[in-house]
């Protein structure tokens, strides 16, 4: 029983991390049809700069972590908005060029990060409590999982509130459904594109800082590693569906944890098989719109 509880809660923690990356990917694809392969770079640069600022302010404390998170969110939002404004905006409806540019940006930034921070992981400090465990139903749960879950829930709630309560949210929801009709109502939908990139970048930025807490290090490949699973989550959840991304994040991460434990470390393989199964049985994903 305690093993199951441990696997479920640690799975939820990992799922929270996947969601922070996948939420932006899903919104960006849903509104703009852009598969953003550079999304992992937003996460990585946020993690590095968040860590750099946080450790200078107060290394290994809650205050330092809070500063890291705020800096990570801001860096993620700014870098993502600049990427949309300077690179992606000229390439809407040109999917191959978009893919080439975002893949290129991803590879170039990894090389850049390695040039600045080196190729080896840099181990990070975190508040003592996050390194401890809490006993739940006989299972010792690492405390950092609770932080990840709480942050992901806050982000999910914040994005849902934004989408439901604001005019920009209304435009984004309508744009995900039928972008050209939004334009035909007299709305400059491109303004929303930058905003959605910034929101996605902010979530990825927070994810970057939290990933450094989860893994205990920052590295140039932090984002690219998580991006693979975030894409899987986005496809399984249904491209463009925030709710689908949330559900799929949990399903994929929990499945991964169970497979790693019970099937000899085959979590990654099982997740890929799950992706294939979903694509075969339900190509639009769990909650994606019909093409």
């Amino acid at each position, binding site marked *: 029983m305690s093993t199951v509880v441990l696997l479920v809660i640690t799975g939820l923690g990992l799922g929270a991390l996947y969601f922070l990356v996948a939420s932006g990917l899903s919104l960006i694809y849903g509104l703009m049809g852009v598969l953003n392969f550079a999304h992992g770079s937003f996460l990585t640069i946020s993690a590095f700069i968040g860590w750099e600022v946080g450790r200078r302010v107060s290394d290994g404390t809650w205050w330092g972590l809070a500063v890291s998170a705020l800096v990570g969110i801001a860096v993620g939002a700014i870098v993502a908005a600049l990427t949309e404004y300077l690179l992606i905006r000229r390439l809407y409806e040109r999917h191959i060029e978009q893919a080439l540019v975002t893949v290129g940006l991803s590879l170039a930034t990894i090389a850049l990060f390695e040039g600045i921070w080196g190729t080896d992981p840099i181990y990070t400090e975190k508040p003592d409590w996050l390194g401890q465990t809490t006993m739940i139903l006989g299972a010792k749960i690492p405390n950092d999982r609770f932080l990840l879950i709480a942050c992901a829930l806050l982000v999910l709630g914040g994005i849902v509130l934004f989408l439901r309560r604001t005019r920009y949210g*209304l435009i984004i*929801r309508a744009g995900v*459904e039928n972008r050209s009709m939004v334009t*035909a*109502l007299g709305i*400059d939908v491109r303004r929303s594109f930058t905003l959605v990139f910034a929101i996605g970048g902010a979530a990825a930025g927070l994810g970057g800082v939290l990933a450094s807490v989860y893994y205990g290090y920052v590295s140039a490949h932090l984002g690219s590693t998580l991006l693979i699973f975030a894409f899987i989550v986005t496809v399984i959840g249904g491209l463009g569906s925030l709710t689908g991304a949330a559900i799929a994040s949990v399903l994929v991460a929990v499945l991964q944890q169970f497979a790693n434990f019970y099937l000899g470390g085959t979590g990654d393989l099982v997740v890929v098989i799950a992706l294939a199964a979903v694509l075969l049985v339900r190509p639009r994903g769990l909650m994606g719109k019909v093409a």
Partner: protein
Amino acid sequence: MNAAPAPPVLAVRGLSGRIAGQQVVEDVSFEVPATGVTALLGRNGVGKTSTIRSILGLIDRSGEVLLEGERIDRLPTHRIVQRGVGYVPEDREVFGSLTVAENLRLAERDDRPRREFIAELFPDIHDRRAQRAGTLSGGQQQMVSLARALVNENRLLLVDEPTKGLAPKIVDEVAAALGEAARTVPMLLVEQNLHVIRALADRVVVLSGGRVVFTGEAAELLGDEDRIKRYLGVHDADHDADHDADHHAGTTEGSTR
């Protein structure tokens, strides 16, 4: 001395449109007067919808489009609409995941939306404001689509096949709403239903093969059975019905399909 005629609200000159590199509208020129309903007619596939979409910049186009004398053909779609062009697309295109109220709120272009007017014109959808538009019937969705255009003050309405696929009773309701709207704003109407055209149109522009082949008063075309057959490829049941003592409600759908 006669007063000078009012300038047209819309002038289209040498308009061509392309979809995926294929020419779908070819050198089309016509004008829409500042009052009344101008019907854009033609057989299926001649480019009526593409002409409307070209005017709005929703597809690649070349040529001149003037709104009250001002060039709008180089503007992006949202700027054209912001200048006071209301658009009711073919197939409704309501946002199915949004509620009726959200569909209307999204369409409001300024802080003076005509909500009372919409509530009076479409009481049924006003009562369904909290319902998701995707769960409405086709007729109700058409009302939402019309309401989205009419919630703003417009200089011109572009209405594309508003009665397509609707039951005869709903066709009459849509036609009545369009008639009400046309009292205050000029309209370019793409329509297949001759009964509706006869009820609403003052002038007609007929397209064939992507080009304009007839422009004139609606009565001139609709009174000529041979022209109707030649240009539109249909038999005008209403025309017959006017001369038929047995005329009954079953002909209201027209015979354009």
